[in-house]
């Protein structure tokens, strides 16, 4: 691909030599302001989070800050309870992630590698189920959690997310595993390896790029879940950061500075993940779109 790009560039360059710098200048003159406008909500969140409430009420939201208060963050963290909410989010997300990735890699291996009755039906059930609107599951899942005495515990969210996300993960992993060349398995089989050993020693290591991509994506999804936390967890001390923020909003109704300091704290884990693992994150999304 690199060669065709270079070829294309020189071809264009020869033809439109004098226009290229001007076109590039226009390109940036268009995109930079567009991005700045696009990110106004984010800049304003930062600005508001460090202002005092008096400053906001007096000068309006759209003015340069005349105050700088980092204690908004500590207030959201301790008084607002974000320290607890944040910890809860990790307590829920990490085990759920382990459940859905390990189980879906088993399912994906089976669906990618063996031809058997029901293969495609099971595969399509996983994919179709992962696209359902959540409302069709809400009442029964709520009842089931109650029956199993899981309601209002971390486990309700851990198990539900772990189970529900199997659908999407199996979809992505199965398609990835199908691209692994078959000779690898034949060689292992001739060596007398059991299917489980082939799975563990060959397929999982070879699928690590896809598993890493899924892990970053699924972490973000489970971490950002609001609906299920709303339904399955009641006690304030168990709430993850999403429903926690919503109750912070009720608690500090007009105190936008505290709310925004809270939202900024709440997005730190997923933003860091995105910044450092952007490549994996994007791979996960594009693999998920089936392309």
């Amino acid at each position, binding site marked *: 691909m690199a060669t065709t790009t270079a070829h294309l560039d020189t*071809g264009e360059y020869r033809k439109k030599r004098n226009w290229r710098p001007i076109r590039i200048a226009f390109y940036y003159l268009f995109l930079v302001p567009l991005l700045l406008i696009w990110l106004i909500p984010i800049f304003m969140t930062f600005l508001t989070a460090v202002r005092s409430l008096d400053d906001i009420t007096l000068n309006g939201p759209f003015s340069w800050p005349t105050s700088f208060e980092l204690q908004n963050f500590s207030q959201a963290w301790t008084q607002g309870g974000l320290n607890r909410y944040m910890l809860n989010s990790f307590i829920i997300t990490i085990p759920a992630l382990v459940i859905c990735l390990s189980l879906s890699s*088993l399912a994906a291996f089976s669906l*990618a*590698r063996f031809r*058997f009755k029901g293969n495609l039906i099971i595969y399509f059930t996983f*994919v179709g*189920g992962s696209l359902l*609107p959540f*409302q069709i599951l809400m009442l029964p899942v709520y009842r089931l959690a109650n029956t199993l005495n899981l309601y209002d515990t971390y486990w309700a969210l851990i*198990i539900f997310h772990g189970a529900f996300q199997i659908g999407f993960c199996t979809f992505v992993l199965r398609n990835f595993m199908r691209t692994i060349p078959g000779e690898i398995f034949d060689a292992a089989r001739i060596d007398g390896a059991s299917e489980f050993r082939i799975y563990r020693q060959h397929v999982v290591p070879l699928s690590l790029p896809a598993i890493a991509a899924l892990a970053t994506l699924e972490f973000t999804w489970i971490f950002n879940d609001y609906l299920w936390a709303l339904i399955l967890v009641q006690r304030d001390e168990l709430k993850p950061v999403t429903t926690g923020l919503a109750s912070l909003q009720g608690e500090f109704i007009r105190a936008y500075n505290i709310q925004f300091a809270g939202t900024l704290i709440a997005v730190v884990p997923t933003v860091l993940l995105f910044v450092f693992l952007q490549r994996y994150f994007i791979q996960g999304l594009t693999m998920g779109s089936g392309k």
Partner: protein
Amino acid sequence: MAETTLPTRHTGVSGSTHKPLWRDAHRLTPYVFLILPVTLYSIWVIGPMFYSVWMSFTNSDGVTRQEFIGLDNYQRLFQDDIFWTSFFNNIKWLVSFITIPIVAGLGLALLLNNDLPGTRFFKAGFFSPMVVSSVVIGVIWSWMYQPFGLINEMLAALGRDGMPIGFLADPDLVTWSIIGAALWRQVGYVMLLYLAGLKNVDKTLVEASRVDGASSLRSFRDIVLPMLQPVTVIIVVISIIDALRSFDLVNIMTRGGPYNQSNVLAQMMYIEAFQNYNMGYGAAIAVVLALISIVFIFAYLRHMLKDEMEF
């Protein structure tokens, strides 16, 4: 997708087929791998789906004994004004989701599909709203839409006179306002999917057409667009499913108000089932919502099935 096929292993080797399945370890293997994930998925996803359908035919309210009442919930639903308001709001979401992000996302993807310095940064910037939770987006946009919030103040600074606009209070505006916040999130996502799609476009073909004297507009229309058609189909279906799932922003920004004017089916179902304890009725709303989605889910699966047949 790469077309290299994993030679699937035929487990039903002749000779072993005479044994019943449960005594044939060889043929049993794929099912063993599937037992745990399929069980968990059936209990928490597939089973509940069917149980909701059953609940929608009952008068379940958490107090009286749950009894079968046939189609009563549905009859009541189709006469409920709130249902129709929510339904048409879902249509607004749907239409917005399959137009604006696709045009804007494709436009951004075309602009950013090059190796100029800084494009990586631009991509990350436009995509960044997708990384934060919808709760955060709801909190920020609620504040921006306030009577003396960011948008009204900006409009005033630009010279707009008169009463501040009630973005979340005006019944005619409220749904569009929430959709606006949702689109801010969606555009970056669609951009990313198109960027992936553009990677598959054969550059030599585009180049050849340019050498032959085609204008850039023509080579885009006749070569690039048709090659983007498969990814567009997927984006449209995903966008529709996302639009039907819309709940978080409505729940956080307005709870469906004022007077249900911004309600959507997902939020209406939540209120009926979990606030008013009309569980049977709530289940009926969920079933209607799911039926609409399933039409598009099947379209998506059919699209995928065609790919499977090519293997």
